[in-house]
């Protein structure tokens, strides 16, 4: 369990950091979806 902790923490950080970053670009994603015809 203890050996898994660093990996779990690292993964949690990466996911959170990506989510925080991606949040501000929602309008870009919407544009991509519109271009692809699914938005």
């Amino acid at each position, binding site marked *: 369990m203890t*050996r898994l902790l*660093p*990996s779990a923490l*690292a*993964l949690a*950080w*990466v996911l959170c*950091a*990506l989510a*925080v*970053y*991606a949040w*501000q*670009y929602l*309008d*870009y994603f919407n*544009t*991509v979806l519109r*271009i692809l015809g699914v938005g």
Partner: protein
Amino acid sequence: MALAVLLAQAAACVGFGAILLKALRIDCADRLNHFCLAFAAGFGVLGWGLFFLGIAGFFQPMALGLVLAVGVTGLPLLKSPQSTATPPLKWNTISWVLLALLALVLALDVFEALPPPTDADSLAYHFAAPRQFIQAGRIEFILRPLDGAIPYLVQMTYVPVLALGGEQAMTLWTMLSGWMAIMTLFALARPYLGANGSLAVALLTASLPITIYAAGTGQIEIRMALFAMVSCWAVGQALSAGTLRHIVLAGIGAGFYAGAKYLGLLFVAGLGLTVLLHRRWLTFSCVFALAVIVAGGQWYAWNAVHTGDPVFPMLFPLLGRSDLGLWTLEQDAFFKSGLMEADRPIARTLVNLLLYPFWVTLNAPEATEGRQVGLGPYGWVMTPFILYGLWLVRHRIRRGPILVYGTSCIVFFVLWFVTGSSQRVRHLLPMAPLLILCMAVLVRQVGLRHPALRPILYFALGACLTFQLAITGLFGVKYVRYAFAGQSDQQYLEANLTVYAPVPWINANLGADDKLFIGERQLFYYLTVPYLFMSPHTQSAVDLRGRIDRWQDLHRQLIATGLTHVLLRGETPFSSAWGDLIASSCLMPMHEFQALQIGSRTLSARSAETVLRLYQVQPVCPGTG
């Protein structure tokens, strides 16, 4: 023809660089590294030499062709007898995937180079100034702060391609020189990161928002990265081997950087600091400074001759001449308190210095342009791993290239922030390749120490690349459409360049004896008639600061400046005097244009329609006598 000129100029750059490296007896063990450094150095040599050709009035096709021919003669020197073949890289499936993605990004660059240019800064001066110089047959002094009286070393390299191969050759040249920056980074990264790591770093840098925004345009930052890389590499070699010839190359590279942009002076200071790390610091720093002055001092001398201020307008109150007409002490004070302050939205405190990279990545103030033209997610996502990697190597940091790369980046950034430069993120692009290399080297250390973390690090890298590649693809859609839609250049420009619509009419109906007062700087490159930039910040001949109440005074200034026509967008600007001027028939309406105002080069949804009106200035009108 465009392609032939492009290849000739590329060969000339490599040739000039080969001559310089041979003269300095610098030979990289790695052939790809040697080739890239030769291109980077030769690119600077070409820009440096063309200054002297330009002020002597030899910007004619014959002379420019001769310069390229001289450069090409240096090519045989590239194959140095000491060079060994590039060590074979360990390629695997991941390598091929990364290479394919890199090829995709580069292919989009080709599409971007095909249509006519639409980037505002490029059209206002990066491309407009070389075009003006070619038409004049010589370099002319442009008395305008920020985008007129500036160092032009990189833009000088646009002159031969534009003069000999036309606009297409010039846009292809920006593409190629941007590619060379990525290739140089790949070459420098291989000793530290291997094949996959180097490809990943190259792909990360090629798809950074700041890179895709600027690389395919006339903007110079990605090309300045060539100078940053060659000079930092050279200092690294000098610190390791104690060789003076590498210091000369470093000084020349840093001088080229300073000759390309005022911010290069901060780079010189940052790199100069690392030169002091050697025990022969006094000799090294003197030689370094001398090389910097020789390689980059000419544009500062050019400014000093014309304005008194070598870094116009930074020292204008102290050194500036009082007889410049368009620029006065009062105008200088207005410019610095207005425009420059607006370009620095983040207060210059120690806390903000540390927070800046995160701030502009996660919640960028509008003026920094960090949201659209930012640093990408890699640095933010990898922050804890980078810091941990730094902790891991704290006892093993040696005086070598990586230390120089990192120190130069940090010192440049600190100086850039504290000296009150414009806080636009894209101004950091010349240092971005080296910064990403340093970050990747530190993250790799974490992966080496803790193999269990490697899948997570790969996942984070993959996610960052996915995001950046998606943005790159979105950015490229417009150019791919142009290639296949069969649009004419005029149609493309009307759809993609802010308020382009009046340009064809103005070019057809106004002549060389007219002078247009125009606030649309993005149109300068396409105008074939004389013009003056209508901005309250960049000229004082016509007072646009809203202080003139009487339209008669305004009319007098327009006439005294030789302006014959005025182009206005939307509502009457600046002051009520302009409205009075129109109402009193001193400005006669000539033509009205419906045009598009482009909010984003990437997202067409942000465009809006607007109206522009062209007025003719009447020499005599009621009330002026």
